[in-house]
């Protein structure tokens, strides 16, 4: 039987932070794919919104085209927001979160991996299906690059900011703090820049400025959010 851990052995542990990042990413993706279901599965939600609009509002191409940039961005925002709550909740309920907090590996690595997994199945997936849906909503072809670029740069920010809200509320059984109230105000700038970018693209105006603003928000989020999420998780669990 192996000897107990000594400090020296600990230093040369086989699985480093990189390994943990990949392992967590793989695990979270696997979990989401197995659950397939998840009512709030962002893609499903996105598709639902897009089928319901022509049915409920009006099937006229002209009207739908006018609606498309905003509807796509609102759907992306709602899809992200709705799926956010589950990000840490299941881990909290089954005790995995405690184990995660007790790991000697830096917390922000796991957190980043989880947010990345979430984004890949929400923001990234949305970005990839957006063109198809945009065609169904008769968005003019000129708007396509603007739509995809703005979604690609904007949605990671949504995931990062949403994760802060999810981490703050994960320990609450009851409680007035609403994740949507916390997060929604922070989402609105992204929504505004995002739709402006698409509308600019549709009308042929330059959209670099909007994309730069979205990029700046993303950089800020990447730098600060993981720390905030980690701290919020520790607070929530210790409660």
């Amino acid at each position: 039987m192996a000897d107990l851990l000594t400090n020296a052995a600990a230093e040369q542990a086989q699985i480093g932070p990189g390994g943990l990042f990949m392992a967590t990413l793989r695990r979270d993706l696997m979990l989401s794919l197995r659950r397939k279901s998840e009512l709030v599965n962002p893609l499903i939600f996105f598709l639902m919104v897009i089928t319901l609009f022509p049915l409920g509002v009006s099937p006229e191409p002209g009207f739908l085209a006018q609606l498309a940039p905003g509807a796509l961005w609102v759907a992306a925002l709602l899809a992200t927001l709705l799926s956010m709550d589950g990000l840490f909740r299941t881990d909290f309920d089954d005790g995995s979160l405690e184990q995660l907090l007790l790991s000697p590996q830096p917390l922000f690595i796991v957190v980043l991996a989880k947010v990345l997994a979430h984004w890949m199945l929400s923001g990234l997936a949305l970005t990839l299906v957006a063109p198809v849906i945009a065609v169904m909503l008769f968005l003019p072809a000129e708007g396509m690059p603007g739509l995809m670029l703005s979604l690609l740069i904007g949605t990671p920010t949504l995931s990062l900011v949403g994760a802060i809200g999810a981490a703050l509320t994960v320990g609450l059984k009851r409680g007035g703090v609403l994740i949507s109230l916390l997060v929604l105000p922070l989402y609105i700038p992204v929504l505004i820049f995002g739709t402006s970018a698409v509308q600019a693209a549709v009308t042929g105006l330059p959209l670099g400025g909007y994309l730069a603003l979205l990029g700046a928000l993303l950089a800020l989020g990447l730098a600060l959010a993981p720390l905030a999420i980690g701290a919020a998780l520790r607070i929530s669990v210790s409660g």
Partner: protein
Amino acid sequence: MSGPMLKVENLFCERDDRVLFEGLGFSVDAGEIVQIEGANGSGKTTLLRILSGLSRNYEGEIYWRGEPIDDVRDQFCRELLYFGHQPGVKALLTPEENLRWYCALHPSLDASRVSEALEQVGLRGFEDVPCHSLSAGQHRRVSLSRLYLSDAPLWILDEPFTAIDKRGVAAKEALIGRHIARGGSVILTTHQDLQGSSAVRSINLDQQGGT
């Protein structure tokens, strides 16, 4: 190693205006089993969560190898294995996938012995069944199999024998005995008597609390 591994001084905790313990002090040496006893609701789980660093709702001092625990949090985490009320097993993953993630999470777990550990807790043949179709005891065994993988000196176990059958409990007790013999130490709670083990020191929380 000189001195106690873990030392607790003057610990105080209350929940909802009810004092769970106050002035609590004890120490855990290498090669020792400490059993926290007490009626339901006396604060055992609360104490273990405080010791492991999960909960900060306390007053008092905790030392790890002689140093205040907050200063050596990293080192402490590295040498700790915690098994909580909720076993931390993902229902959608198979036992093997669950364990592999734990191995990535904690350097003290040895990923190369995963299938061996699963066999030792009697889950051979269930490696690729999603955990949600395991029985209650098998579910907890998945998490318990970490004990077979771990090199961490300090084990903190909150009711590890819940839902485990008699043979399983005996095996776990033997494992704890071996861990002690190697110079590790264990802090645990359980409502059953520890049968085989020798060097058990118990701390009773029933006398501690207020009303």
